[in-house]
């Protein structure tokens, strides 16, 4: 497995996969294949190379459909990343003044700022509180929905990037649907690590990024049920989104093309299809199990020396071990780990400033594990973390 990730040969321990995963050779080769074999436009030209690309794009769409277990490949819209997918829904979902959107208190800025912006249009933003350990409280959620009949859309992260906690999405969606509320899931941190079945979840919209699931950067997906996508107005418009125009009118394409404006990131799309294939072959549930087993070692060996963000049980945190140490600058901590032992972690507030500010949490260092990390690496991380703690204390 590890030999497929060339960068690991540089003697580095990479545990920043929640930010950006590494790519296996097959994905890189697929991108290379696009540039070498059919580096053209799809859907506009009618030559052999263009036809090859059209087939490859369709193949990628179908692979992602399969990964999500979506009904049709037409429910797969290519975006730049999760942020763009979320923005697309925020700007296209029919919300009127006085309507409300519900998010949790632990959302990535990508699932907070688009809604904050809608406040200018009179759309209310309601924040769902979580348990103290960051886990989801279904009872409180029900109460929130009962108390706020103006909620029209629930937009939650599926898995958190700061503590790895996965919310009970199926139950959340069921409850929302009972009240006629649509649900958008930010699956950027869940899809690369667990099986996400949109049919079983019955989710209305779901967005994720390629770069966190071993795919290329600059490519993402917004999944939407066909009937829900049809209700959305296009957000970005222009070339490829229309069937015809006059100087006074426009006829839009059907989904998914309606939402894919301009020349697409074809290298990204075919690479993402390959990443989806790789992910299915690897089996996301096995990935999750592997991450939890590594996280158990980290938790067991470090829990008494650091303050963890999130629940103590590693089963609930997947591959995330996010921590801080009182009176130690965690930016410096991460930087020392990097320069001393080639351990790539991330420090900061991880784009969830609002949660850190609300909970008065200091900057933290996040270790985010993935398929290519090993037990040996984790033990080395613990050894080095202990040395740095000793040095800085």
């Amino acid at each position: 497995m590890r030999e497929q990730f060339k960068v690991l040969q540089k003697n580095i321990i990479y545990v920043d996969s929640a930010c950006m995963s590494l790519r296996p050779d097959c994905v890189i080769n697929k991108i290379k294949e696009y540039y070498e074999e059919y580096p053209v436009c799809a859907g506009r030209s009618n030559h052999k190379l263009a036809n090859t690309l059209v087939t490859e794009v369709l193949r990628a769409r179908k692979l992602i459909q399969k990964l999500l277990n979506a009904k049709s490949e037409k429910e797969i819209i290519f975006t730049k990343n999760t942020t763009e997918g979320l923005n697309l829904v925020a700007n296209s979902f029919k919300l009127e003044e006085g309507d409300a959107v519900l998010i949790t208190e632990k959302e990535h800025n990508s699932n907070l700022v688009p809604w904050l912006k809608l406040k200018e249009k009179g759309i209310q933003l309601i924040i769902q509180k979580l348990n103290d350990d960051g886990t989801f409280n279904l009872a409180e959620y029900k109460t929130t929905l009962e108390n706020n009949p103006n909620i029209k859309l629930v937009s939650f992260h599926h898995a958190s990037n700061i503590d790895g906690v996965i919310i009970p999405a199926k139950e959340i969606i069921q409850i929302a649907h009972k009240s006629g509320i649509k649900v958008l899931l930010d699956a950027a941190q869940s899809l690369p690590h667990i099986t996400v079945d949109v049919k079983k979840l019955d989710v209305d919209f779901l967005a994720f990024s390629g770069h966190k699931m071993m795919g290329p950067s600059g490519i993402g997906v917004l999944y939407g049920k066909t009937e829900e996508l049809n209700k959305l107005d296009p957000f970005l418009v222009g070339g490829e989104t229309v069937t015809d125009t006059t100087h006074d009118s426009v006829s839009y394409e059907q989904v998914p093309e309606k939402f894919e404006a301009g020349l697409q990131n074809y290298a990204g799309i075919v690479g993402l299809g390959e990443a989806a294939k790789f992910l299915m072959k690897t089996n996301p549930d096995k990935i999750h199990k592997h991450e939890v087993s590594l996280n158990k070692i980290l938790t067991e060996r470090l829990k008494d020396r650091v303050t963890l963000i999130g629940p103590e049980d590693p089963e609930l945190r997947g591959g995330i071990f996010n921590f801080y140490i009182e009176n130690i600058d965690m930016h410096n901590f991460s930087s020392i780990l990097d320069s001393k032992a080639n351990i790539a972690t991330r420090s900061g507030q991880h784009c969830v400033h609002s949660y850190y500010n609300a909970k008065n949490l200091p900057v933290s260092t996040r270790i985010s594990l993935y398929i290519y990390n090993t037990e040996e690496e984790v033990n080395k991380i613990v050894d080095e973390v202990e040395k740095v703690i000793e040095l800085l204390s």
Partner: protein
Amino acid sequence: MICIIALIVFGILGIFSLSYRRIAIEAFDCVFRRLVLRKCQSRLDQRARSQITGKLMKVSKPAAKFTYKYFHVIEFIFIILLIWSIVQTGISGYNFYVYGNCNGPNEDGFCIFDPTGHNSEISPLNQLSCSTEEVDKELSLDQLNTSLFPVLNQGDDNIVFFIGCYECEYTRETYPVIKKLIEKENPTVIFAHLPINHDLESFTEYGNCIFEKEGSTKLMEFNDYMFSNQVDQCTVDTCSAALTHVNLDLAAYTECIGLNASVQLAQEQFNALTALGVYGTPTIFINGEPFVGPKPYRVYKRALK
């Protein structure tokens, strides 16, 4: 504080590299913010601190701990060193401008602006057969009777006392600079031929005779010839060629240099110069200020009143 160092160091490196330019911009932002009493946001100092600590940890844990703990003190020391270094660089620049040497007047240490040390190169007297011993004392014209020497140009009250040797390549290089000085600034220039080679001693006498008989214009012509032609000994041929070039009669001047008075004058001149402590050519005094070695024009010009 390390941002100040980073700004200077990476500002220079940034001219050549984009990656260093990025750090320089961060450092500038940090310094600017500090100047307006705001917090540095780039954390450049902390990044440097932790990266240095991390690298040191590989070598010595106590050293890493010490560095991390006393980083601000170390930063302060480096700042002091930086300021000292900048001041020294400024002084060196000033010295180079004024004396043609970073280390001050007539010093021969390494100079970054003149790495080959060309501006201080001389033809030493003590390495040649005719040489005199180097006198380790401050060069001064105070005790010298300058009336012993021919005046090359009678100009204003700026006095240039030009000691050179016809064979010395550095004097040959300096001569056109002195001529330019004469042309543009018109100082009074006294010329003293100090032969670094016994074979050239007769030329001193020829020069004196030419000056006595023909005046400074002819002496200038003679010097023009001598400094533009590599003449390393005074034979019948070389002397004849030099005198013929300036339309003078070899026989008459051969007679002149044979006179006791001529020999005595040349000897007095030589003694007077060696008594000064001159240890090589060219040595030029401008209004009493000595310059050893071939200096740029600006150095000589600046020394004029």
